[in-house]
């Protein structure tokens, strides 16, 4: 791996006394797609939320290049180059697509800069300008995810974090979403996503981590992990069982 852009070290996070992730150390290089897979409840979403300072109790270090991200509030994180697309629909269904995009540029004071960025995003996602006056709630699930990713690009982030972008989508649309993730990479963004759609997500990733019960257990190149028997072993706790 090239020099790390995002570097998370010994991160512990949870809610009250309930630690959800412990001793988590991960890195993402510039322009790299990194996916974290693991069971429901393993701590995937909490990890992203902790990086974005949305979890009450945290310890550890989080850096982006030379910037210490740990103490920054979510709005400061946005202006420091980190965008976060949470799980579930985060679009504004009663606003138009054009209005949704403008909301993504809410922190940008310079109207001309905002217009330039919206233009650029519209060229990347041609489906959006075609439907700019349409209410976002009328888009299909896959289109809504694309709108979220497009919106995240408006702050011109260095790192985009995606929480289960493929959840609830039909298999054909899932492929489209992972193509869009690769588009983010071509735009020079680093991508950190968590996924339960294990094989499809790893196939689209440069590297992957497997998280189990709040700890990172495995790390390797994405395509290598797809057929790594250790992943299945972790999912079905075979190692632990044979120890008994």
């Amino acid at each position, binding site marked *: 791996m090239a020099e790390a852009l995002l570097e998370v070290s010994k991160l512990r996070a949870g809610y009250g006394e309930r630690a959800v992730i412990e001793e988590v150390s991960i890195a993402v290089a510039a322009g790299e797609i990194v996916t974290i897979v693991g069971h429901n409840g393993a701590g995937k979403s909490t990890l992203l939320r902790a990086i974005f300072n949305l979890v009450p109790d945290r310890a550890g270090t989080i850096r982006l290049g030379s910037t210490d991200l740990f103490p920054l509030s979510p709005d400061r994180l946005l202006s420091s180059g980190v965008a976060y697309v949470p799980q579930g629909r985060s679009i504004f269904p009663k606003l138009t697509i054009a209005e949704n995009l403008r909301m993504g540029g809410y922190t940008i004071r310079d109207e001309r800069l905002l217009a330039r960025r919206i233009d650029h995003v519209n060229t990347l996602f041609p489906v959006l300008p075609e439907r700019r006056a349409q209410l976002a709630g009328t888009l299909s699930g896959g289109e809504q995810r694309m709108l979220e990713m497009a919106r995240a690009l408006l702050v011109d982030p260095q790192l985009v974090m995606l929480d289960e972008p493929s959840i609830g989508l039909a298999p054909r649309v899932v492929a489209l979403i992972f193509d869009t993730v690769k588009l983010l990479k071509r735009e020079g963004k680093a991508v950190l996503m968590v996924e339960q759609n294990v094989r499809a997500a790893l196939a689209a990733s440069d590297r992957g981590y497997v998280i189990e*019960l709040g700890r990172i257990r495995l790390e390797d190149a994405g395509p290598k992990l797809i057929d790594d028997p250790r992943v299945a072993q972790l999912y*079905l*706790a075979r190692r*632990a*069982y044979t120890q*008994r």
Partner: protein
Amino acid sequence: MMKLLAVEGVRKRYGGVIALADVSFAIEQSGIYGLIGPNGAGKTTLFDVIAGNTAADNGRVIIDDREMTGALPYRLVRQGVARSFQECRVLSEFTCLENLLFAAQPKTLGHGIAQIFTRRDAHRRAALESARHLLDLVNLTAYADAPASVLSFGQRRLLEIVTTFIMRPRVLLLDEPAAGVNPALLETLDRALRAMIAERTGVFLIVEHNMTFIFALAHEIIVMHQGVVLERGTPEQIQASPRVVEAYLG
């Protein structure tokens, strides 16, 4: 053989989403059963149907050889069904003992809540004895008279689980009991569940994502995927099943 718990052809749809496509299984042997499956497999919906929290669109639910399809939760409680939820639910301002005694109110009579604390009858003595025994099972005897709010998260979980057991249910549904419980308390939980099932004939059906925990504890595992039962077998059989691996890794 008697069906302790059976579901037959259960379907449940929420709008355009099919949560349960067609679920059937029967449990005749007393014991601990794990219910696992990827996110969205339908596990919690199935619990809701069995416990009467939601009505199935089709199919039958059988408890103790009696058809209970569509019965309301209070009737199912009388029939011996108890459940816990993913979110921990204890009465934090009441003592641990009081938490258990609340749950031990006679479910077949219209008793007022206050009576359970004032009447010194046989029921109360039996309930007290049972409550103390259960607190002991989860190492909470020292906290019997302390408010549940002083307990750690894991201890509150343990209290909640023995609370569901005080009426000696025939069918106990536990939704992710191990979630967020630290390793030391997990051992206590494992031991307590084994002791509880040994005390009576019944079915503990446990949804769990901590595979180490459930594979070590359960007699048998039922795997759900996309609203149907994908596989059923011993933990060893399930761990060796390519179909189960496929379901998880997609």
